[in-house]
């Protein structure tokens, strides 16, 4: 028996796929922004906070990094439901993605802050700057260069991992592909096309992140 590929039905669903792709991008971008917003203060607290807070953040990061994302999605989705919080699947997906992404981002930001030489701190203190000033105008800018590539890869990883949220019937790329595959009975073709879309996104974002890195850090600054 030879199988004949047929992409006609997938082509008919192209606008749906585009919608799903945009939703995947929107979810990933929002997740990245929220993760960073949570991770920066959490990373600072993880380094300089009181003992109980450091311990709590450490435990959270280790828990998230050592359990499957899929189980975390279930915990968030059904957990929120039990707590009486009614969210649409995309909202629950964003919360699960952020709960997951923040843990990895905390570790990235922390490594960036720790990676800045102690001497920078001491120099800032000698100049009479407050700890907040030292963080915001001396340590963070330098840490930014250290964390740039880990954060860029983190974005691509989030985008790829977001396919797992299709388990709660969201409207991102993988869920749309599942719908198309069950409606057209062309599962292999549908997943092949979607795999191609994900790959194109990874390649495109790698290129964009390289350009941004060059623009931010590699161009000669005027003397």
């Amino acid at each position, binding site marked *: *028996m030879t*199988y004949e590929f047929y992409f006609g039905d997938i082509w008919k669903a192209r606008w749906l796929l585009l919608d799903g792709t945009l939703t995947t991008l929107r979810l990933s971008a929002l997740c990245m922004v929220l993760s960073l917003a949570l991770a920066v203060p959490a990373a600072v607290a993880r380094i300089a906070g009181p003992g109980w807070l450091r311990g709590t953040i450490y435990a959270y990061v*280790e*828990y998230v*990094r*050592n*359990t*499957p*994302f*899929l*189980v*975390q999605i*279930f*915990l968030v989705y*059904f*957990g929120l*439901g*039990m707590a009486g919080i009614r969210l649409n699947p995309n909202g629950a997906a964003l919360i699960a993605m952020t709960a997951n992404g923040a843990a990895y981002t905390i570790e990235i930001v922390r490594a960036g802050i720790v990676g800045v030489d102690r001497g920078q701190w001491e120099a800032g203190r000698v100049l009479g700057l407050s700890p907040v000033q030292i963080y915001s105008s001396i340590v963070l800018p330098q840490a930014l260069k250290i964390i740039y590539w880990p954060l860029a890869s983190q974005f*691509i990883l989030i985008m*790829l*991992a977001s*396919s*797992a949220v*299709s*388990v709660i019937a969201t409207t991102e790329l*993988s869920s749309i592909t599942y719908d198309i595959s069950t409606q057209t009975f062309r*599962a*292999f073709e549908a*997943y*092949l096309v*979607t*795999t191609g879309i*994900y*790959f194109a996104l*990874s*390649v495109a974002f*790698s290129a964009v992140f390289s350009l941004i890195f060059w623009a931010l850090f590699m161009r000669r600054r005027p003397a």
Partner: protein
Amino acid sequence: MRALNFGDVVFLAKGALWTLALFFVSLVGGSVIGIALALMRTSPWRPLRWFALGYFRLIQGTPVLMQIFLIYFGTALLGFEFGALLSAGLALSINAGAFLGEIWASSIDSVGKGQSEAARVLGLRYGTTMWHIVIPQAMRVATPPTVGFLVQLVKGTAMASFVGFVELTRASQMINNATFQPFVIFGGVSLLYFAICWPLSLLSSRLEARLAKAYTR
């Protein structure tokens, strides 16, 4: 809806065993693919190096879920009756091969070129050089990231539940559908994963710290 009972615990325990089975199948398959790719990536022949690099980029640039679906539906189209364990195991092997292959290739690269050149001058063949000179030294560097990747692999097995393979995550989902106690079930199951993964994570970072210390000395 019904209450949680002892049968559910047994069902989850069976799921956990299937998770471990899938993990070992994928580890063995991924290692075989990974070794082949690492040797290709470090081989003197350019097309082989490019093939390995393309494989790494393609697999690492697409979701493991898509790989699982493509293998599951693809093998069915080709007329194979693989079943869920074998097709999920094959997909995770293909996936793990890309990560292990890249880890091992860079470990081989980290062994100085002088080592293999010296071996060639002594008249050793490629196989002997690799096996007796390069790989033993590369293994020291490769161990910490390899152990770290095992954590990714254990977590990755959960994705097999998408094609209906009843491993730990799928089992917990089924029991939750019947009893609706998500905190107890998913919380408990996540702790089970944690009990497997956390020691590996700790071991990986301890090995890495020891290696870093050995290099600064």
